[in-house]
């Protein structure tokens, strides 16, 4: 057998990669650039509007955190090669389960919350089971669930309560041990102190006179950050993370080397449902009510945040940090346009444009990584 040429240390045909090109193939790059641009833009246009005061920051942080919670689930699922279009309906459905068990049936709120998680995560498992068993595109299967769950979300409250919004949950949750985990605030003492030393403004009149205008960090934000850290850790630092990439990259190749692809996909559907339920529970505790129209279009917003964050729609590539930045861009722009006094319908125009740009950029990056031409 002839000896081949490759005994030398370097292959002269491989160009050394410039560092910006190396940075470009990181999935988060688009998200990082976008975040910087968005902040610069609003610093310039809306700095005086209070957007970067304590109340303003809290405002867009909460909105971003909402996007983040569902984006983490959608991100991991998309990297595993699947979509879930039923996220928005799941949010409405989970909220309604909590309302019906706690208000209509009068059960304790903690039990209603646990039941909501059990039922919704089971729905996610069913979604995943149908997808892996039938081999149908998850797009179609979860589209079916989008309608099924939304239908029930409207049907149950109308049947039991003759209305589509069930309120009174905040009173019911008074003194509950589990509800504050979703509806409470942390660091309230710290913010009280900040108010006392004059670092943040306090109310000067009314029933809350003397209290800081920002009471604390809502649990919603804590959940969002915790889920981002968990998702990022799972994806990049564990064996399971490698399986997620492999399942989405090429399911058949992954099966050949013994990766339990079906289990990975079903678990990711369950995790997406879990995230949707966290979102729903936080929202129900914040508003004190559950509505049949909650969560409309959230599935698409989650997917857009994930795509802005650099994930490929075809699976196998993406980043949780990127998705979180996508969600941050989303929240900042949505609220920022309000602070800047721009007509809010333009938000949708922005959404469409940034989605288009992100997809084009991602396709280019994909060519860079795989060397396709």
């Amino acid at each position, binding site marked *: 057998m*002839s000896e081949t040429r490759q005994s030398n*240390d370097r292959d002269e045909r491989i160009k050394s990669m410039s560092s910006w090109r190396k940075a470009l193939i990181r999935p988060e790059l688009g998200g990082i650039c976008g975040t910087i641009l968005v902040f610069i833009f609003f610093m310039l246009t809306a700095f005086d509007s209070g957007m970067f005061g304590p109340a303003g920051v809290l405002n867009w942080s909460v909105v971003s955190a909402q996007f983040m919670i569902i984006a983490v689930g959608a991100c991991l699922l998309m990297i595993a090669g699947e979509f879930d279009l039923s996220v928005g309906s799941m949010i409405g459905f989970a909220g309604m389960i909590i309302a019906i068990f706690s208000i209509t049936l009068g059960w304790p709120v903690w039990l209603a919350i646990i039941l909501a998680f059990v039922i919704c995560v089971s729905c996610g498992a069913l979604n995943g089971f149908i997808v892996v068993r039938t081999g149908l595109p998850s797009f179609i299967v979860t589209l079916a669930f989008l309608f099924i769950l939304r239908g029930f979300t409207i049907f149950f409250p109308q049947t039991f309560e003759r209305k589509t919004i069930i309120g009174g949950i905040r009173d019911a949750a008074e003194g509950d041990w589990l509800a504050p985990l979703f509806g409470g605030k942390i660091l309230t003492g710290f913010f009280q102190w900040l108010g006392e030393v004059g670092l943040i403004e306090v109310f000067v009149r009314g029933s809350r006179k003397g209290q800081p205008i920002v009471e604390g960090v809502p649990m919603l934000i804590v959940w969002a950050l915790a889920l981002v850290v968990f998702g990022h850790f799972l994806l990049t630092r564990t064996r399971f993370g490698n399986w997620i*990439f492999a399942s989405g990259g090429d399911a058949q190749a992954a099966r050949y080397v013994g990766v339990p692809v079906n289990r990975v996909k079903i678990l990711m559907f369950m995790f997406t449902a879990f995230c949707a339920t966290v979102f729903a529970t936080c929202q129900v505790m914040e508003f004190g009510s559950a509505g049949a129209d909650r969560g409309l279009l959230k599935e698409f917003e989650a997917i857009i945040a994930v795509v802005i964050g650099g994930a490929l729609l075809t699976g196998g590539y993406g980043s949780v940090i990127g998705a979180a930045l996508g969600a941050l861009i989303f929240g900042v722009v949505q609220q920022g346009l309000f602070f800047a006094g721009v007509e809010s319908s333009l938000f949708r125009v922005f959404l469409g444009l940034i989605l288009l740009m992100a997809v084009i950029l991602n396709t280019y990056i994909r060519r860079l990584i795989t060397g396709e031409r």
Partner: protein
Amino acid sequence: MPEPIVKMVDIEKHFGSVIALAGVSFDVHAGECHCLLGDNGAGKSTFIKTMSGVHEPSAGQIFFEGNPMQFADPRDAITAGIATVYQDLAMIPLMSVSRNFFMGNEPIRKFMGLPLYDHEHAERVTLEKMRSMGINLRGADQAVGTLSGGERQTVAIARAVHFGAKVLILDEPTSALGVRQTANVLATVDKVRKSGIAVVFITHNVRHALAVGDRFTVLNRGKTLGTAKRGEITPEKLQDLMAGGMEMATLEGSLGGTV
């Protein structure tokens, strides 16, 4: 003569009314490269899928290291030490070389009781193994998509060897490659064989087979047309056997040489 590591006797495989394999016998020794030749549809793929546990034979026996074996699924075969490298389904282009290398066999490092993917170990071993196969990577985090077809085959072969394959089945590793890449893959096969691993090399290219093979078995229409040792058979004879004789000889006459 020592006992063959894998011995398959009178294997038959029927898919409904189709008889894909009608009594094929085959064996391979450690440190030997046994080429399985045949034209498209001869039953090569069905046969190796039987050997690697994807299909259960309808009749016949498989002996592994002298003991009768029954593989319920590919996992069993892999555990026993039979690894298969498929032509196109071996690698995931978007993932890095090291993540591909350890896919399904991820190295684990304990950190505060949590089992973590050991990136450092994975990248070090990947670079080491690839260098020993004659491929210098820019880095273990380079995506497999940037490698050539031959390099991908080599990664897959190195992976199988690293995870303790005793028998390596290569399904047409050279059929989609250029001349130089083919030479590289064949050199890799040669290295693997010399390290004492049994190689089953499936191809329909007689020249590739003769370059590395110790023995040659020709399949045609689900049957073996006999096994020949290296030096006992000419390329023309092999080619004729694969094509089923007659008409190939006339065809070659009109084309002016061995195809």
